[in-house]
């Protein structure tokens, strides 16, 4: 059924595959997608999803997956289809499905103990927790940040970072004084001065999560926010760059200057103290919106000048996909961010920081029952060690450069359908816009029908979020499917 199987480029790729790092992990990875059902989701998927719907909200299901049969860059569904996956559980599969090294980690004594004896980490940590952190999460820490606090998801990581920022800002204001009687009393009624009236500043189109604090900083889409009470926190514009970048250098610089000016005036005009500013290196959910290192250095300078904690949200950009381990390394900042948050591909979540004062003065303030999950920290360690061992960050940078160049040539043939290819020199973290929402959705569906699972973002964009074991041969399959799909539009 899968016609592309028969085309020549794919055969050529197949014979080359043994040379690549991915084959080292996945000698049995499919050479090409397999499509067995006439639709995706197919009949088995649909049936299982209907059953699931009886007990669990299933309205966002793409298809029901078979993780036992998924392998490497290929996700298998319940109908036996095998799709090349460049969406990867919303950007959260680092090393492919059923990676043998992660299986080893999952079978280790350390992991079994972490699963069956989950500790309240901040009260009864295990003997090896420090070592697990040092060999994994901390070994991967961004330059300048040598401490970590662990959480459970991207939203959780960001909210704990906000808490750290609020407590820091209040503590600074309070100086050597303790809490006042009035603070102690008013806080129990959720009133100032004990409850904070400080704010977190975020950008238009940002996405930082969906709990009440993080959602108050999320500005991506209405449907993410409607009907949920929110804090009256400010927002400020994020640059809207024109592509290709080299043709619009002057305009783009002017746009970034405009946004920096707006940022400064937002800060100056804020009637409330801004405890922290949070920004994504690339606004992913909001449409893969990029800005240049110049802009981010400007943001860093303004936060320094106005004594605002600078939080970089690397939940989606972190862990290698941008061609650096952390995307903010692309900026070469004069001083590191105050806080960097992570989750998704690291499997463990939390935030890094350097300044010890970002840890509240009193214990039991940044606290909860589990304070993270050692089983995920063990997984993060294994992920980090494989990334280093197989040099997957550089690998991703190279594959990304190849993919970007090919996409530029390919999408250039359909200028009325697609535009604004972005993510040059940014690993496989690549996206483009479709002319309309309908075209975007059509492309996503057609790609899936031809064996590529791909995701959208923003209003009419398509984003690539493959694993770190995505190679040229996978890129070629993706490109060939995209070409077919666009020709047929």
């Amino acid at each position: 059924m899968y016609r592309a199987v028969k085309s020549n480029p794919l055969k050529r790729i197949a014979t080359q595959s043994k040379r690549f790092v991915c084959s080292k992990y996945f000698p049995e990875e499919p050479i090409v997608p397999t499509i067995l059902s006439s639709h995706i989701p197919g009949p088995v998927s649909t049936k299982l999803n209907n059953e699931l719907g009886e007990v669990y909200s299933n309205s966002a299901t793409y298809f029901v997956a078979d993780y036992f049969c998924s392998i490497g860059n290929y996700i298998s569904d319940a109908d036996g289809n095998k799709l090349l996956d460049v969406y990867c559980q919303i950007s959260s599969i680092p090393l492919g499905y059923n990676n043998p090294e992660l299986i080893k980690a999952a079978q280790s004594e350390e992991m079994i103990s972490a699963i069956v004896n989950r500790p309240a980490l901040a009260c009864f940590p295990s003997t090896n927790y420090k070592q697990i952190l040092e060999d994994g999460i901390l070994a991967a820490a961004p330059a300048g940040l040598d401490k970590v606090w662990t959480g459970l998801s991207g939203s959780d990581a960001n909210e704990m970072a906000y808490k750290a920022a609020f407590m820091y800002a209040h503590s600074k204001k309070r100086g050597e004084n303790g809490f006042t009687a009035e603070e102690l009393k008013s806080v129990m009624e959720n009133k100032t001065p004990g409850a904070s009236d400080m704010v977190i500043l975020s950008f238009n189109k940002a996405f930082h999560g969906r709990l009440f604090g993080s959602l108050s900083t999320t500005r991506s889409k209405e449907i993410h926010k409607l009907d949920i009470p929110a804090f009256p926190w400010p927002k400020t514009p994020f640059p809207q760059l024109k592509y290709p970048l080299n043709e619009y250098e002057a305009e783009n610089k002017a746009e970034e200057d405009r946004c920096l000016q707006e940022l400064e005036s937002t800060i100056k005009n804020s009637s409330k103290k801004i405890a922290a500013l949070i920004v994504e290196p690339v606004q992913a959910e909001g449409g893969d919106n990029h800005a240049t290192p110049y802009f981010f250095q400007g943001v860093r300078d303004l936060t320094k000048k106005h004594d605002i904690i600078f939080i970089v949200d690397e939940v989606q950009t972190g862990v290698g996909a941008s061609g650096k381990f952390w995307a903010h390394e692309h900026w070469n900042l004069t001083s590191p961010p105050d806080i960097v948050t992570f989750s998704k591909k690291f499997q463990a979540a939390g935030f890094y920081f350097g300044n010890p004062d970002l840890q509240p003065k009193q214990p039991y303030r940044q606290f909860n029952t589990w304070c993270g999950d050692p089983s995920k920290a063990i997984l993060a360690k294994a992920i980090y060690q494989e990334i280093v061992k197989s040099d997957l960050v550089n690998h991703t940078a190279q594959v990304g450069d190849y993919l970007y160049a090919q996409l530029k040539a390919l999408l250039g043939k359909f200028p009325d359908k697609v535009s604004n290819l972005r993510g040059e020199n940014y690993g496989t973290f690549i996206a483009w816009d479709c002319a309309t929402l309908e075209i975007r959705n059509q492309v996503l569906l057609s790609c899936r029908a031809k064996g590529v699972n791909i995701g959208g973002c923003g209003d009419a964009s398509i984003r690539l979020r493959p694993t770190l074991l995505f190679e040229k041969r996978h890129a070629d399959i993706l490109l060939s499917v995209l070409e077919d799909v666009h020709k047929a539009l």
Partner: protein
Amino acid sequence: MSICSQYFPEEPKAPVVATQEHPSVKSKVGIASLGKVFDSRGVYFVADYQKSNGNYIADVDGNVYLDVYAQIASIPLGYNNPVLHEVAQSDKMIRAIIDRPALGNFPGKDAEEIISEILKVAPKGQDKVWSALSGADANELAFKATFFWYQAQKRGYNTEFSSEEVSSVMHNQAPGSPELAILSFERAFHGRLFASGSTTCSKPIHKLDMPAFKWPKAQFPSYKYPLDANVEANKKEDARCLAIVEELFKTWSVPIAGVLVEPIQSEGGDNHASAEFFQGLRDITLKHGALLIMDEVQTGVGATGKMWGHEHFNLSPPPDLVTFSKKFQSAGYFFHDPEIVPNFAYRQFNTWCGDPARMILAGAIGQEIVKHDLSSQAARVGAYLFKKLEAVQSKYPEYMRDLRGKDRATFIAWSLKDAAARNKFLVDMKSVGVNIGGCADDSVRLRPTLVFEEKHADILVAAIEKVLSGY
């Protein structure tokens, strides 16, 4: 053979007290070293989980404590339970660990089966679940469900959003981000993120310096003990507190969409209330078109002698949402009304929407509890323990005030005269080999596993007597 002995043939017969200080040398080194990279100021001791077994937790200095705190009430079946070991090594678990899905987009073939296992032990009247990652997360997702539902009731379940809603929401302003409230109680604890933190009212230190929603707090009954000698006074107390709730519904400046309550306020001091009080809350929420959310994060999963604490109250109709975490290892909320699922996709959503690895574990925990009827065992052991504690209380009334948790299995607590006395007691208990926790400022709470048996109760009571006899 007792169930505990079946699971743990090697369980220590008694605590081992190897050091004079707690934490001792190696723990202190570990705490200092961890503290360079991870906040370790709250650490009691560094634990050796390999050497921990059943109801006993070992530390790096060779101490082996009888554990009646159990990771802040979150170890269900003892350390290194062999059945959970097997589950942890199963192929299903390994896939769940390494191929963690975005469950809302790409559920695995086995998702329905995993969820059905969890639902087998759902509270009466609940047949659906949404999964989360912690107690705070579960509660906040339940708040979101409540707000979606409340607005849908006003708007019509299938009605589109208005253009004002759509434009105002991006500025975090009403009507798109409506001003709505969750009502909770003084001394309640529901978590420490921003919305859960707004409903928490246990101690200032849990809340200070965080922005909070201005949501109302009613009073939770403060009973006089022993209960059977104070029936009338406590009945009046129920009525007084319910009247406050009613009054808040009528007068609060923004609409109250849901009432959130723990079956027993745990962190806030193990405060109990009667079935009549909870039925009163159920009636008030129905009357005012609000949802009733039971927070079973700490009370759930067997420890009160029923699978869910609120099953003691026979509420009719059942609560709208029941949140869980801790001993279930997986978190989330149960519900039954299909309209609690929002009308559009991607509203109750996030990347992972739960964690199948933890959900598989929850299913296995539920199965073991049912198989060995561990809730009834907890009830039996709790009754035995409570009697013994009553005897201790009559000897040392000053150190065991307001003994509470009768007929609530091992979910037992008492108070001392002040925080200093309580803290000293907790420390002294370590020197006789018991790891035990406090709640509120002046109380001690027992939160053992579900495989805590009479023989452990004997050791615990002897240890308490030993400490108190030195006072």
